[in-house]
């Protein structure tokens, strides 16, 4: 198959998969797109929203649309690392001999739903860390790979903070994108009511295999990125650092720590998936602008003034992108140079 054919196939598969999810999930087109972008980019996605907005349903529907294993972990304060990774248990064979056998935890699945991840203790949260970053877990000195593709979708509730353990910055940085699930509009709410109150549930078909997902991941990495687009991504990430010489005023005033290089990777990888999903063979500046908020909102740590002022990180990132775009456009103006 030619490259052009592969791209067209990906575009088609992307649209089909999204359509399957949208059979269940009403609205949230952007959230669905970003979840798929995170999956095809090989990253993990954190969904944040109040209860009842369909976060868990979205992930479940996605897993049902893919020919992939799925496991759901409901994080609670008493959840232990072994409960998600697995543990060695003593097994007795037919001869009566006993030996240790590794009993895989729920993490050993292609798609893992870490529901209300901020309710688990940091110890358990960090157990998830290795799996998310290395796609493998180590139990009893033995490293065990997780199945590929491995995709963690975590949810957390931003309002019920009592008895929760906010994710540390290191673990937040492992998520490629952080999506904010917003309340549906009234038309969407009506559609949700209609769909969920019928006697016959909606059937979701499996439209994509794990192998296809892996193949598309390879294809996505071949999407070329122009130097000025890459520079734009670097500029955005650097502009989130208050110590940077050319940082905008909002960053200097409200930001304590800026985004890590993973932020730039997330921008470029997400941009590649977005470009290819739109049938484009290159990443554009618009791709980066569209993905700036989900890729950076959890990587920018506000300082005390930012917290006290109630600064929204999405607004902050938007202002940073605007300032970088203005400075970049100005510096690239042919008349000026």
């Amino acid at each position, binding site marked *: 198959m030619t490259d052009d054919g592969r791209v067209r196939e990906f575009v088609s598969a992307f649209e089909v998969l999204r359509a399957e999810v949208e059979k269940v999930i009403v609205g949230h087109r952007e959230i669905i797109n970003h979840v798929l972008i995170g999956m095809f980019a090989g990253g993990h996605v954190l969904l944040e929203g109040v209860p009842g907005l369909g976060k868990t349903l979205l992930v479940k529907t996605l897993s049902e649309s893919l020919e992939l294993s799925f496991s759901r972990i409901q994080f609670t304060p008493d959840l232990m690392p072994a409960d998600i990774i697995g543990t060695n248990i003593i097994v007795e064979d037919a001869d009566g001999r006993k030996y240790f056998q590794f009993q895989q935890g729920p993490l050993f699945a292609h798609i893992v739903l870490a529901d209300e991840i901020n309710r688990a203790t940091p110890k358990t949260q960090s157990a998830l860390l290795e799996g998310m970053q290395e796609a493998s877990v180590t139990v009893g000195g033995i490293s065990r790979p997780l199945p590929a593709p491995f995709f963690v979708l975590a949810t957390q509730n931003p309002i019920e903070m009592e008895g929760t353990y906010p994710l540390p910055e290191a673990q937040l940085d492992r998520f490629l994108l952080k999506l904010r699930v917003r309340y549906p509009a009234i038309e969407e709410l009506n559609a949700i009511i209609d769909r969920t109150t019928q006697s016959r549930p909606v059937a979701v078909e499996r439209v994509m295999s794990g192998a296809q997902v892996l193949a598309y991941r390879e294809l996505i990495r071949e999407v070329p990125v*122009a130097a000025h687009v890459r520079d734009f991504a670097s500029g955005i990430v650097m502009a989130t650092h208050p110590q940077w010489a050319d940082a905008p005023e909002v960053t200097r005033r409200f930001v304590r720590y800026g985004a890590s290089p993973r932020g730039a990777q997330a921008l470029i990888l997400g941009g590649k998936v977005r470009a290819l999903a739109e049938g484009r063979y290159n990443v554009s500046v618009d791709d980066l602008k569209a993905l700036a908020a989900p890729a950076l909102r959890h990587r920018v740590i506000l300082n005390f003034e930012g917290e006290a002022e109630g600064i929204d990180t999405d607004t902050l990132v938007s202002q940073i992108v605007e300032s970088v775009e203005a400075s970049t456009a100005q510096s690239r103006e042919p008349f000026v140079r």
Partner: protein
Amino acid sequence: MTSGAALDRLVRGVSAQVRRRRVEHHALRGFFWASLPAVVLLALKGPLGPRAVLAAGALLLAGALLGGVWGALKHTSRADAARLADRAFGLEDRVATALEWGERPDRTSLVAALVADATARVERLEPRQIVRRILPREARFLPVPLVAALALTLAPALPLPSPRLPDFTPGSQEEDKDARTGSGLLEERSKPEARERLRPPAFEEREFQARSGSSTASTAGDLSAVFKDTSLSSQRPDFNSFLKRGDERLKLLEQVDRLPDLASDFTASQYKMVFRKSKALAGGLRPDQISPQKLKELLEEMERLGRKGGNWSGDVGEGMEALEGGQTDKAMEAMQKALDKMRAQEEAQRSGKGLRGGRDTDRGGAGRDRRGGDGSGGEGEDFGEGEGLLPGKGRSTSPKGEASRRLSATPYDVGVEGESRRGRKDGYDTNMTGRGGPMASRLHYLGVIGQYRKLMEDAITREAVPRDYHSQIKDYFQALDER
């Protein structure tokens, strides 16, 4: 892999548009900056004549041309042009990415599809002007010099200030006045009124009271009261004449060679002059190192001085003989002897001219007679036995001496009146009051003027007076003689 021809064509077209805009942009800048000296040239239209307009036009043209050339020479990279095309045509960075990746050796498999896609999209584009015109900042201010240049071109030449100083002579003032009265301009007619208004009120309202000792009656507001002791008291202050005199004095100062050597001490005695010359001649040198010529000149001068009453001519003669014999040391010794005698005579003369008491006039001619003759009287000879300034030492029976006849006659005919000054109160303005009495203070004028003239001739002969002042001194005494 090379980029498609359509992409190259697009980029070249955009580059050409950018170049054209740059030419416009920088030509406008050059035009603006050239307009500033052009305005200056047009302001000098008077001295330069019609050439100023031509030069200004040429300057504007050259500025615009240079700016345009500068803009045309600026390079536009392909990447910049491609990005500009992407933005203008909404190609979402396809052209820039295709151009960049089409030439890279590590291009991915999707690059070919990207180039083909970009080429297909570019071929569907309608060519249009995509580079907007950007006016330079100077363009906002361009109307100012242009309007100024236009006005200066159409208006008559500006009058320029003359490098000569204004003529303050009265004749020129008369001419100006005539010219002013002859002109019909309103503002020029109003000038004299304005000058009157500008007189300082203190000067206008001040009244100078005639002092009691003044012999001439002055009226209120008469400025001559200020100058009553000067030659200006009888006339209005004339600044022009003052300037004229100043010019004459300045011309005199330019004649440096005719000016007296004010550094020299002409009041010094003959002995001091000769002593200084001898000291300068010796200068710490041994007798054999002294210039015989200069020593001879000094001895000759001492001999000339000795002929006017000195008693050192013999010593000078010995010195001259020793000098002719080549004995410089002996000549120096003889000169030293002559100097000693000269000093002795100087001291004797000075002792006779010391300060004397204020009442020596009352003491009659005894004292004068004693000081007469050769003038060699000592200081103790000023007063007779039992006389002096101390109370009770005079010939008067009064402990403080007798009052003068003048004071005893009218004690109020003379005096000093004054008033405290404004300000720091550290002095008084004083004025002699009283009228001149019929006292016999006059000497026989014609009797003494001859003596003074003789002394003057003597002083001039001794060259104690600079040569340039000889004629003036003689004129002065001649004027005294005529009275």
